[in-house]
């Protein structure tokens, strides 16, 4: 019973957050100073359209009727959103949903691989570092992790681009798939896609060295526990202790970090995709920003946010499997 209650509440919270984000996007579009709606109407009128026609176009594109009073416009906007109608892109002359739908899988591809690999590395390395705290490995790897954590991922991305793509030519300099090849399950195409994604993934992994530092801190906290002394007395090997005992207990706070880092990585994809000219959702959102293409920009914003919200929900719901103690009421404190 308790489990069901908790999950229902968590889902309810997700729905609430989604509603709040969409409402926020409405507020931004409609009510902010310098709001996109007013700006778009001005844009169109300057091009010589008569005001009535301009309003019509704006309504079509933003899913917001400029003539309606705010409450009615809000209801209409929410209905449109619920039906998946995010408006029309001004620059690409296409529906925002279509643009985002074809871009999103590429972003998810890069993000999911980057997240998995970097956390696998971060957690195992962090546990070892903590176990041999003060040793040579710890000092060396801590310095490495500090150095990597101090490099913003986009700076690293630019460096990788300069050297691995432009200077040494190991990887393509931009784009998301090989040109001139039919999309399909053929080896050249798939390997081309992986090669295009390799640099964005690599820059995220290398830059996430800080994850292992967090793990190290957590693991040190675990290291004082009595059951570790018992494990050592039983003659268990260092590797067994660090993976089975330390890592399992230190991993839980890391899971929280993972949840938050999903959001950060999604946010970071805007810069990353610009650096590598990788046409994912972040690239489209940024190009919309440059073009003052408000429907696409707000659509990208809403979709990225919803994706993060859903990812966090999934992660939260699976948290109980990672830590059996967290099942039920206590798991509220994620």
């Amino acid at each position, binding site marked *: 019973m308790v489990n069901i209650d908790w999950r229902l509440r968590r889902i309810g919270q997700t729905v609430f*957050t989604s509603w709040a984000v969409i409402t926020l996007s409405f507020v931004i579009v409609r009510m902010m100073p310098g709001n996109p709606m007013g700006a778009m109407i001005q844009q169109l009128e300057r091009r010589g359209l008569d005001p009535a026609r301009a309003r019509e176009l704006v309504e079509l594109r933003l899913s917001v009727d400029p003539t309606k009073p705010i409450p009615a416009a809000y209801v209409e906007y929410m209905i449109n959103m619920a039906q998946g109608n995010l408006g029309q892109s001004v620059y690409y002359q296409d529906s925002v949903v279509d643009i985002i739908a074809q871009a999103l899988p590429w972003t998810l591809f890069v993000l999911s691989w980057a997240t998995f690999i970097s956390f696998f590395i971060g957690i195992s390395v962090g546990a070892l570092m903590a176990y041999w705290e003060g040793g040579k490995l710890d000092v060396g790897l801590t310095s490495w992790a500090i150095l990597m954590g101090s490099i913003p991922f986009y700076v690293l991305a630019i460096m990788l681009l300069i050297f691995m793509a432009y200077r040494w030519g190991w990887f393509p300099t931009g784009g998301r798939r090989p040109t001139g090849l039919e999309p399909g399950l053929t080896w050249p195409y798939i390997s081309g896609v992986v090669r295009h994604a390799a640099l964005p993934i690599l820059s995220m992994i290398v830059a996430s060295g800080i994850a292992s530092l967090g793990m190290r801190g957590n693991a040190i906290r675990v290291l004082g526990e009595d059951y570790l002394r018992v494990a050592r007395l039983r003659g268990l090997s260092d590797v067994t202790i660090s993976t089975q005992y330390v890592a399992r207990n230190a991993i839980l706070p890391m899971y929280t970090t993972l949840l938050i880092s999903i959001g950060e990585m999604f946010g970071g994809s805007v810069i990353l995709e610009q650096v590598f000219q990788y046409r994912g959702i972040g690239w489209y959102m940024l190009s919309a920003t440059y073009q003052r293409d408000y429907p696409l920009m707000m659509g990208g*914003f809403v979709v990225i946010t919803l994706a993060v919200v859903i990812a966090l929900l999934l992660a939260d719901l699976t948290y109980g499997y990672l830590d059996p103690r967290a099942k039920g009421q206590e798991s509220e404190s994620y």
Partner: protein
Amino acid sequence: MTDDNRPDRTDHAEALESIPSGDEGSDAPERTASGSAAGAAGDADGTVRPDGGSVGVESPFEVVSSVEETRLDKLRKFYDSYIRAPFFIVWTDWRARIGFTIVFTYLLMGIVGPYVIEPTEVGEAGALAKPFENWDYPLGTDQMGRDLLSQVVFSTTEILKMVFAGALATVGVGTMVGAIAGYKGGWVDTVLSSITDIFINLPGFPTVMVLALLLPIGSNPYMVGLLLSIAAWGGLARAIRSQMLTLRSESFVEASRAMGIPSRDIIFKEIVPHLMPFVVINLTNAARRVIFSAVGLYYLGILPFENLNWGITLNQAYQSGAHYRPGALHWFLVPMIAIIVFSIGLILLGQSLDRVFNPRVRARHEKRSGETAADGESDEELTSKVGGV
């Protein structure tokens, strides 16, 4: 302790003896409370004291310090245990030494630098001079012939302004919201936690990007800092809240509640000081985040600008194609290294603060230095002093 103690009375036992005669009215409130309780019992059964102690024998609990603590003493004690001792502990760690030095250097560069180094102009020197060739332009020049060293120094001031506003706002709002939510519980917690959740769920960079485009931020670095804090305070608020949940049921908090101290004072004067280490460490993290996001925003060319900063230098380098042109690499490298070194300093500082504040690490540290006994003495002495931090 109040300051109106009669100077001749240094021993509490004497004070107790004079209680039955009932002249205790003018004494300090704590003493009156204990004194009158003992006095009442003493009246009831003659000379026997209620705590079972014999009259005239000094109990260690009744001895009052014969030395009066002045405000200066208090100040010195505070300085010793909260500033000097932690500083020296931190200083024994190589990371801390580097971290402090780096951060201090950047502060110096940002505050004093602009008065020492001349601002640079377009066409001041030849385009894309290499670093370390011409000592008028030690770090080389960019495509427009501007001195990169001067750009770095003047950028530091701008970035420091952003960090100052952004990190303080992030940590301030995060601590306040988290502390109130965790302490109050009930509907206050529900409301504040829901708001926090929304802000945690907002992906930081896109949010800031959209807001930067729509809000009239202008080129004011303080405003940029505040803008960046909007998407950053949520995580800290949640962490503070969860720590608050355990602290709120501690006995000292219950005692304060029973004494009728207002919630605001309990939260901010009693509990939050316990969380200060955590908050201070987060200050360095917040500072790093502000730098990364601000430089990112400027690199993408989203914010308008008046004065140069590292992000704008990167943006101009990218716009001019310095990433594929030979001989322009230093244009990227100079601002990048400026960011990275500052960030290393902040991480090291945060880590060493963690060492001071994390009792487990401190205990291990103490044990180890005791074993080696080389620099053990000073270490141990200092470590025991900060016991209360």
